[in-house]
């Protein structure tokens, strides 16, 4: 097994759970009011195109939270901070909340179904079926739904091995998310590539850990 330096934090510091909760909530508490204020009160916190800016920020925070969820195991292994494990659910559920906000923003503020007289559900369907980057993004969202629904302790107990199998989707969803991001941009692929590199690093770490576990007694 790897060394466990603990960095002097063998037990969860007091207030950590609350701090994590606030940290994960804070971006949404800034982005959503700023976007709505820009759109309906005439401010320009998010620049000239608040809809797109807010939509993109919510998408990026979804990815960041998905990455954080996946990074907990490698981080735990490296540091010995086993108390991190129970926060995976918090981060995962926040990721799901952000993707819901991203999707709501896209549907009602960007595409503007039920908002613009010139847009209908048929337009949404066309986007979903004819535009691969949207199809892939939506697939990522759909796969997250059962994970969020089965995130309770009761589900874990009830489903047993099947829960573990189902929750392997946490590897698939962020990959879909990064592909969605990469395909959504024009030529400015630097940032999505950076996201891809971060995800790849986390996945490689997890792979190494899994192998080590497999050979360890």
């Amino acid at each position, binding site marked *: 097994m790897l060394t466990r330096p603990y960095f002097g934090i063998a037990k969860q510091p007091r207030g950590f759970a609350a701090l994590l909760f606030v940290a994960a909530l804070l971006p949404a508490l800034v982005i959503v009011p700023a976007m709505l204020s820009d*759109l*309906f009160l*005439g*401010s*320009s916190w998010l*620049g*000239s*195109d608040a*809809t*797109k800016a807010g939509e993109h920020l919510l998408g990026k925070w979804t990815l960041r939270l998905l990455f954080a969820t996946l990074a907990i195991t490698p981080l735990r292994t490296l540091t010995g901070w086993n108390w991190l494990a129970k926060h995976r659910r918090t981060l995962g559920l926040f990721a799901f909340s952000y993707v819901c906000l991203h999707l709501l923003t896209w549907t009602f*503020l*960007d595409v*503007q179904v039920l*908002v*613009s007289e*010139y*847009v209908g559900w048929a*337009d949404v369907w*066309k*986007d979903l079926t*004819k*535009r691969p*980057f949207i199809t892939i993004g939506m697939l990522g969202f759909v796969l997250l739904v059962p994970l969020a629904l089965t995130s309770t302790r009761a589900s874990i107990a009830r489903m047993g091995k099947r829960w573990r199998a189902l929750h392997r989707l946490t590897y698939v969803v962020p990959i879909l998310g990064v592909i969605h991001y990469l*395909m*959504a941009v*024009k*030529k*400015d692929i*630097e940032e999505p590539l950076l996201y891809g590199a971060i995800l790849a690093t986390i996945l490689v770490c997890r792979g190494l850990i899994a192998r080590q576990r497999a050979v360890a007694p």
Partner: protein
Amino acid sequence: MPNNGLTSSEITPEGVYHDRRQFLTAAGLIGAGLLGGASLPVSSRSAGAQQQRSLGTPYGLQPTDSATPEEDVTSYNNFYEFGTGKDDPALNAQEFRARPWTVKVDGLVAKPGQYQLEDFLKPSKVEDRIYRMRCVEAWSMVIPWRGIMLAEVLRRAQPTSAAKYVEFTTLLDPARMPGQRYPVLQWPYNEGLRLDEAMHPLTLLVTGVYGKDLPNQNGAPLRLVVPWKYGFKGIKSIVRIRLTSAMPATSWNIAASDEYGFYANVNPQVDHPRWSQATERRIGQFRRIPTLPFNGYAEQVASLYSGMDLRRNY
């Protein structure tokens, strides 16, 4: 040319323009109708943005159109020579020096030449025109430009009978244009028009916006504006205008030919592969509005494309 809706009497003489009553804006104190067609409200985000000025002659505008606030026009830009983000150009172009500047006119012309910008502009009448601007990304603005008609420049250069197209080239100088240090697009940026499109009286070589010299982030000191085409046709910081017999290769077409055609006429019926072009979001307004064929300029320009399959020639 067939009725293009632009008789010379409609084009505001400079003197009249300067004398025209200043108008009051989004406060709605004076309706646009009171002042005649030459004014329209500036939609504003805050009271501070309300400006009193005459904006010029509006072309192709719809009754609901109002000028996009200057702060948006000069801070929300696609100009990859200064970065790919919308706010990158305004940040990264601050130190760009757009003077002195030379423009070369060559290719299939009887009178080629290389000019200092001032000499290049001097013979032409400067006009203020308010145009709709539709970006291929499905957002739009209404912008009061200041510029000269490209047709005047071309006439002076005297295209030969072999000339069929006009190619435009942006300055290539990675030291001054940091975005050119990355192979995002093929540098220098190139654009092109068919000669009849270039000669159309709506086609402008722009030197200013909102009554001021063009800010660097908007393509100083000289850019193209073709209001019935998607915004990426409006090449910025032009150093060369070349008449050719073959259709010029254009930067975005080279980058993604399935997404960006040579013609790039605004067309609500031909979707971009990744999004619908049927509607657009006007910067500064929340609700989507319908996109119009040729961006509202069909009456003036549709005849240029009669008989062409606009779905194939996107």
